[in-house]
């Protein structure tokens, strides 16, 4: 399922060049807005609610969907619980873009891949839970995949939005816990704190990378 159509390029020159390029339909249509709300599936209120939330950068839980469908009237919710459940299951089957994620406590949330990536949804989900687990997951992922250490202050910015105290406290708490024994810290020459996972980065390497990210890159504009 695609958000927009890729058109075949014009023949002649471009085939000769060994490539066929695909033109994009003009961009005005493809901005977020009513088009995205409609989506490729049937117009369903629950689907629209989910898509609107994703456009705003938010997951939406089953409970929140129920409330929204009930129009904010408390009494009406209970009756519809089973209906909503069924409805969501159906939507998941019918609409390519609607996805479900499940938190550790079993709570289900939904998002639309039209405007939200799987990675971001996972991050938001993790954000709802234990901060230490969130930080650890991201630190490990970045240490493995990029690879790079993670500046602690990153977690004070959106979409994490912790306070500095919360982050520092969490990091301090992690040091004592067995399951986070691989999470280490390193300080750059400007005293900025970075975290990394020893599963994927050696201390000397992590420290060099942190210094590069913090100082080196700006010295090589």
């Amino acid at each position, binding site marked *: 399922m*695609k*958000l*927009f159509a890729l*058109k075949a*390029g*014009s023949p002649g*020159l*471009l085939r*000769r*060049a*060994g*490539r066929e*390029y*695909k*033109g*994009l339909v*003009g*961009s*005005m249509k*493809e*901005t*977020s807005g009513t088009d995205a709300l409609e989506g490729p599936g049937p117009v369903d209120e629950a689907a629209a609610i989910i898509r609107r939330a*994703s456009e705003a*950068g938010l997951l939406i839980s089953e409970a929140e969907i129920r409330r929204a469908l009930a129009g904010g009237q408390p009494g009406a919710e209970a009756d519809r619980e089973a209906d909503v459940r069924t409805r969501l299951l159906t939507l998941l089957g019918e609409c390519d873009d609607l996805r479900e994620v499940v938190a550790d406590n079993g709570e289900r949330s939904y998002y639309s891949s039209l*405007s*939200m*990536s*799987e*990675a*971001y949804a996972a*991050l938001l989900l993790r954000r709802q839970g234990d901060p230490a687990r969130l930080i650890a997951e991201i630190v490990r992922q970045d240490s493995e*995949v*990029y*690879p*790079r250490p993670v*500046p602690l202050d*990153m977690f004070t*910015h*959106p*979409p994490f939005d912790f306070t500095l105290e919360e982050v520092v406290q969490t990091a301090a708490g992690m040091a004592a816990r067995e399951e986070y024994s691989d999470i280490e810290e390193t300080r750059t020459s*400007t005293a900025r704190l970075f975290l990394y996972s020893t599963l994927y*980065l*050696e201390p*000397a*390497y*992590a*420290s*060099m*990378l942190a210094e*590069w*990210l913090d100082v*080196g*890159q*700006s*010295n*090589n*504009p």
Partner: protein
Amino acid sequence: MKTYGGWAGKVLRVDLSTGRSRTEETVDKYKDYLGGTGIGYKVMWDEVPAGTKPHDPGNKIIFAVGPLAGTGAPCNGRIAITTLWPTCAPKPLVATGHMGGHFAAELKYAGYDAIVIEGKADHPVWLSVADGKVEVKDGRHLWGEGIRRTTAAISQIMGPEAVVAAIGPAGENLVPMSNVMNSISHSAGGAGSVMGSKNLKAIGVRGTGSVRIGGNKDEWEKLVKYHLSLLGANNQHVVPNAPQPWAEFWSPGTRWVGSKGRAWGAAAPPIETGTCEPHNLNRIAYRTNNAAFYLGNAAWQYTVRGNGCTSCPIRCHTMVKMPAVASKYGISEMGQNTCMGLLFGWVFFKSFPAGLDGRANMETCMVGMHLADDLGIWCNYGQLQRDFQKLYYEGHIKAKLGEKEFKSYSWDKYEKSDPSFLFELLPRIAAKEGELACALGLGTGYLLERWSIPEAEWGKDHDLAYWKMGHPKHHSCEEVGQCGTLINLMYNRDPQCHSHVNFIRNGLPLQVQKKLAAEIWGAPDAVDAIGAYTPMHPSKARMAKWSVLRKELHDSLSLCNWMGPWVASPLKERGYRGDDSLESMLYSVATGDKLDRQELDRVAERIFVLHRALTIRDMGTKEMRARHDLIPEWAFEDESGKAPFTKGTTRMDRKDVETAKDMFYDELGWDRATGAPTAEAYRKAGMGDVAIELGRRNLLPG
């Protein structure tokens, strides 16, 4: 005779000695060199003999663009300037600079692909190019004025749409560390004093013509939109700086800083940048804010909007408004620039008490821009400022200046990082006033010579960024291992090549980069993680060759090498692939001359090889490997003693670097022992005449 689109069709020759001008047919004479640096090198080869010095009347200065300048191809706003380089030490050689803004486009609309300035006027002049009307005008009333007033004065004559490229007092006074600027903030470093030596104060251009698209206009429209769809943020970073709802990846080091909650705070009313989802081509201009990228989030409140070159949606310049500096320093509350231009004043100072969060950073940038962009002083990619810090804190300045001159500077202000210190220093550099100003204005190479400081001392320093021949590195081994090193060997000033680093810093995880690298350069081994370098590999040589060839191609076509090539994109559905054929497709449709990727890269190779020939001829030696392609000592050291190829160091291995040179020269078909192109290599590049000339001078290998 086939007529092509793209090119304006004429090269303007202006002989300042006689005041006369004439034109040549671009396509007839220069099609094989495209434009830009291609035309520049060709003119220098054909017409400026070895032994000419930068300020001699016999030197020429070539302002040139390519067929894409002035079109709607994204990122085509730069003009290349080729000449003998005043700061190149120990002997000036041919090098190029560029400036963005609107000069490149306006020149095309006036009907020209290039202006070649020859000779020397016997009194200050300025050149007026208004469509077909070319006049060398009396510039005596402008001589001594700053760049801003000069621009205003010429605009008052030529109209508000005129684009003015002007030098300031620095260029007038033949300070080698000087530039020429247009459109307020767009500078070409290094060429200012060459204009000054010709008594040329400024070039004003007004063009009411057009650039014809040679191919089908609907095809062109599709191609332009396709190119736009692949764009990232500045430097073609394709991953956002912080997690965004639409993005799979994010990377704190990228220039894609637009985000919900981040706004152009000094716009009235403020304008939020938003999440800048990559399919939304109407929000490209909100992705980048280089003031915020360099100076931290405190810069958002001062940001009025982005700015930049004709046709470019990226807007890598930031227009900032800081009312406090008006009363504090008596300067305009408005400032704009990017990168080193923005940081010009800031880099002089060792540190700021409040760190990045303080106001002092932006204040210092404002003062720096106010002075440097009016006086027309060049930074040599920050080497001026780094040298200054080292010379001061290691006592050289105190030792070399007489007591009287030393006391004439407020060093307490400098040590406290008070930006008002710049009011004492910068005007004096522009005026060559005093020993310190004269020395700094020479550029590193000749400064070291004048102050009897061995170059090796600069070559040992890890923080100084010095490379060779009077210039700093520019994205070398500290980041891109052997590929970066090889690129930095090739030029006679800092390379100004971003092909490689745009890719390495684009924010994609290593495995994704390796996958793309395999497709582009033949093997995933072409790219390493920074600080985890692996031994030299043929794919790295291919990447280095691609990097320099594409730099010359961009500088000749008129595409911005700070944005291209576009081999990665932000689009997950493409596997983050860009398109390595964009340049050849744009060229083919714009001109109507159909060349595929390999064919156009061969033209780029011709241009690059000609630069090598110029270097060999003007150095008078073919021993490039031994005498030109040099690497400073710091590149082979690690301050904590780590060995090469261990994780956590960017230290190069001497033997491996020699292998790198071998593979690179092989890739180009050059002689390994000398690093010089062979006669065969010149002939293959379509320059048999160059081979003959160099053969006559015994400058061919073997």
